[in-house]
């Protein structure tokens, strides 16, 4: 604690002529029925011309509210104080006419959900031209030409045709590019991008980030990139600001924050991420507990209740953002700052030194966590005998969904092949992951295995018994062994039932209602929750706790197989780690087999024994996790692995990439031959016409082509990517 220079120091801002966005002591308060809700507290930051600043935080940290306040887009019920200046012009407190002159002209914004950001009743050309015509005195024709030019710049093919299309005729990735084009329209000085890729698939995310980069270069604008994804931040910004409970808790260059965090929260976040670039055996270290309620903030440091090194001082006094102990940077703008009373103790500390690799939830006393942590931190015994018995298997599963016309008639007008010929084997006590982007058929496959939907053709067998021939009533007793855990912890629990009733329901259905009560307590304890909380309703629990309730329900009948459909993708990273640890512990204790459906390769790499990569209803590549990630042979797998951003600035900027272009084709009309060929970088760049013919005409089979695992590519070739 050498110097305590405050970033709010007025002198430092006046000198820097390059500052395009200057936010000082911004506060946002909403009035709610339970009192004032302080969403943003004393946030100050500056951005220089052409610079990229990343703002990272979990949901509810106030990162989006901050930017909405700057843009003047918050509802009137929000009270905003402080200052936000663009090129010296104050934005806070302007009336609508005044701020309209600034918005879109000097400062532009990109929102999270491209599917709802564009008005469905106007063409995209109209919506881009509107941005130009609002600020420039040009003719409609000129605005239209500029719109076409902008569409071209953000990488939309055939812009002259696309310009007259309506938003619903474009894919999500395309629409987000249109939004970027709108942001670029008047060469703004600042572009704020609020989670611009969160709603998109990874391969599309890579394309959109590229378009964003192009927009920056074209306009010379500074970028404020708001995201929860540490990987995206690592690769695309110069400086990072970490937000927690409405405040900035750490700022600095990406290298400083990623390699030398001086606030336990930032360190904890990094430790709770499953990483593509590190050894698989390590257990994750979650941050216990949940962020504080913004209605009832603790008196001291907002992170103190979750911080393993919190002391009395932390609970009594909120630390200010001050220069980090080992900050070397002389340029004040880039200086590393952290809001921690004991930041100096974090020098050379790794996440696992501070946080515990626990699977418990914060409701359990911290001592218990510590005790549990020491014994459980040992590496998991991962190697299962290869000869273990096959529990669940599928042969040539096909599922076609009818496409129906809109309107009352709902006539069948076509078919979507959601799953077209999948064969799988799930062995005892192993984790098989099904990976793929949205629409690849992975969730449909999971439901087919459980016979929640019926296959069009193909076979499903469980312990040698065919399931696809059973009636619903015959299937019922077998459901005891096969259980499902869902993605959305808010939608998967009946909001009108108590937790005890929810967990006991499967037992009641299967005639075990008498012993249910005692068993529920056992189960709550097993998933790391307080067994006394069974009388509560789901809405009283946090997302991570609800997911644990969902797992307890699935375990209530002592199943042999759990099918996990994106079980952690709706959770914040700091919470997600605890649930992953829990799933690993449960597998070891109860000898469960998991079918783990996910789009997140980092999580899959961490948890799975074997992986099957799906694309448009077919398996592209399958093998053990080690083989698949160390030596991916199919171009799609390679592209997927390339597209996952690594939370490491240096590695992320220097790694070799295999990029795919375009969007996933419609499953109603898949390409002939190899389904991936329309986006395949190998097909586009390496193959000659003669060899391409094979890809167009013949669907490749899933075969071992000398790589030790199976892939479905005529010209597969191993590439090392990590």
């Amino acid at each position: 604690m050498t110097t305590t220079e405050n970033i709010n120091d007025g002198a430092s801002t006046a000198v820097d002529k390059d500052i395009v966005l200057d936010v000082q002591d911004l506060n946002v308060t909403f009035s709610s029925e339970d009192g004032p809700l302080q969403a943003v507290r004393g946030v100050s930051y500056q951005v220089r011309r052409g610079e990229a600043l990343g703002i990272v935080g979990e949901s509810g940290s106030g990162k989006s509210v901050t930017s909405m306040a700057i843009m003047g887009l918050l509802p009137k019920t929000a009270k905003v104080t402080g200052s936000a200046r663009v090129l010296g012009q104050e934005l806070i407190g302007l009336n609508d006419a005044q701020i309209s002159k600034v918005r879109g002209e000097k400062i532009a914004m990109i929102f999270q959900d491209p599917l709802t950001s564009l008005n469905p009743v106007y063409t995209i050309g109209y919506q881009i031209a509107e941005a130009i015509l609002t600020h420039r005195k040009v003719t409609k024709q000129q605005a239209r030409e500029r719109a076409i030019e902008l569409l071209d710049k953000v990488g939309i093919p055939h812009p002259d045709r696309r310009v007259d299309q309506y938003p619903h005729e474009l894919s999500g990735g395309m629409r987000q590019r249109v939004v970027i084009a709108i942001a670029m329209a008047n060469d703004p000085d600042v572009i704020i991008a609020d989670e611009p890729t969160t709603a998109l698939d990874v391969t599309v995310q890579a394309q959109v980030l590229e378009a964003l980069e192009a927009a920056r270069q074209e306009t010379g604008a500074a970028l404020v990139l708001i995201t929860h994804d540490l990987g995206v931040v690592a690769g695309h910004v110069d400086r990072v600001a970490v937000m927690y409970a409405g405040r900035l808790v750490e700022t600095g260059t990406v290298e400083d924050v990623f390699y030398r965090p001086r606030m336990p929260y930032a360190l904890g976040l990094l430790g709770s991420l499953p990483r593509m670039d590190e050894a698989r055996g390590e257990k994750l270290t979650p941050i216990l507990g949940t962020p504080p309620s913004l209605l009832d903030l603790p008196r001291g440091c907002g992170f103190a209740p979750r911080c393993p090194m919190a002391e009395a001082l932390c609970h009594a006094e909120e630390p200010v953002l001050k220069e980090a102990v080992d900050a070397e940077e002389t340029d004040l703008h880039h200086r590393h700052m952290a809001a921690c009373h004991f930041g100096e103790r974090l020098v050379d500390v790794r996440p696992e030194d501070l946080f515990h690799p626990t699977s418990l939830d914060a409701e359990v006393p911290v001592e218990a966590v510590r005790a549990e942590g020491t014994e459980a931190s040992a590496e998991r015994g991962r190697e299962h005998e290869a000869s273990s018995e096959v529990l669940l298997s599928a042969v040539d599963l096909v599922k076609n969904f009818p496409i129906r016309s809109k309107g009352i008639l709902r006539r069948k007008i076509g078919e979507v092949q959601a799953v077209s010929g999948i064969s799988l084997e799930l062995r005892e006590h192993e984790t098989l992951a099904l990976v793929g982007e949205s629409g690849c058929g992975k969730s449909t496959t999971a439901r087919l295995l459980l016979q929640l939907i019926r296959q069009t053709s193909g076979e499903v067998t469980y312990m040698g018994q065919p399931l696809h021939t059973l009636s619903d009533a015959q299937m019922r007793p077998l459901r005891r062994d096969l259980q499902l855990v869902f993605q959305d912890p808010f939608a998967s629990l009946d909001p009108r039932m108590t937790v005890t009733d929810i967990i006991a329901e499967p037992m009641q259905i299967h005639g075990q209602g008498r012993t249910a009560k005692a068993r529920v307590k056992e189960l709550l304890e097993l998933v790391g929750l307080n067994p006394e909380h069974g009388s509560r309703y789901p809405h009283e629990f946090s997302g991570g706790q609800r997911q644990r309730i969902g797992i307890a329900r699935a375990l209530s009948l002592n199943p042999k197989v759990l099918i996990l459909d994106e079980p952690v993708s709706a959770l914040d990273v700091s919470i997600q780690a605890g649930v992953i640890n829990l799933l690993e512990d449960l597998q070891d204790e109860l000898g469960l087999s998991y079918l783990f459906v996910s789009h997140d390769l980092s999580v899959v790499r961490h948890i799975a024994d074997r992986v099957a990569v799906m694309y448009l209803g077919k398996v592209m590549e399958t093998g053990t996790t080690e083989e698949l990630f160390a030596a991916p042979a199919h171009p799609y797998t390679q592209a997927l692995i390339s597209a996952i951003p690594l939370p490491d600035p240096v590695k992320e900027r220097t790694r070799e990439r295999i990029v795919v272009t375009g969007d996933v084709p419609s499953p109603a009309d898949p390409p002939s031959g190899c389904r991936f060929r329309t986006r395949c970088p190998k097909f586009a760049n390496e193959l000659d016409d003669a060899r391409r013919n094979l890809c167009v005409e013949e669907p490749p089979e899933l075969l071992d082509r000398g790589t030790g695992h199976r892939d479905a590519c005529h010209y597969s070739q191993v590439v090392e990517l990590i």
Partner: protein
Amino acid sequence: MLVYTARRLAVAIPVLLAASVLVFLMVDLSGDPLADLRLQQPPPSEEVMAAAEARYYLDRSTPERYWLWMTGIGGNGDIGLLQGEFGPSVRGGAFDIGEQLASSITVTLRLVTAAIIAALGLAILSGVVSAMRQYSKLDYTLTFIGFLALAMPTFWLGALIKEGGLWFNQTTGTGFFYTIGANSARVSNMTNWEYFLDSAGHLVLPTVTLMLTSFASWSRYQRTSMLEVLNSDYVRLARAKGVPNRVVVRRHALRTALIPLVTVATIGVVGIIEGVVITETIFQWRGLGYFFIEAVKTNDAFAVMSWLMLSGTLVVLASLVADILYGVLDPRIRYE
């Protein structure tokens, strides 16, 4: 689009047929068209009764009668919906149900059109203002007016308005408000312009009465859909582009929020039929409402059935028009 419309109609026909069975049974089983005749003093002779029964096809079984009513096959040429005959009226041969219906429609159409235009205009205005000033005094006032209008019995309000008009006329000694009928008695010697003014004058009070419920429900609907759009991402993006709020509301919010209202209003037109029955009773218009009440009161079974079939057909057509309008207004929906 044509194909879609045709197919939609094909689905509507069985529903209409089923409704016709329901309507027929309902009316046929609930009353005796010859009740008045039977109660005559001295009682009519057996032959007179038998002739009357044969005249109104009451000597046949219910399924036979339905078949007759629908097709007219085996009848006296005065029955059969499919042949355009609505059946004999118990009010005598001079009363032709088809002709009377047609002349009633023209009268009622005038009232309904005026009420819809007035209700739509006011509903949009009030809904938009309410949504833009959400939770303001004005919003609460308009909301309360909406609730009040929704709770207001049309007949009571209509009677009040009519008496109010009469009272105004009496106090001022003028004939400012027209309170009876669709036109004045001496229509024949009016110029076109005078006729128009006379009709418009007669429309005022009934229109206010009839539009009230529709206005209330549509303005609430418009407020909700406007609020939804105002909170949408694309309105936020439009504002982020620098488009002034006024323009955003007109160009983005109103344009999109009107789509659902148009369809709701189209379907809601049918709800106005209920209002017509009462409004016409109060203001003594000789339209569809009057036709219906007279038909029920005189036990004129075929007249009631014809009326119900007409209103049923209107309902089905309105929902078809609503669907088609939706497709025209919203580019996301295209009928193959």
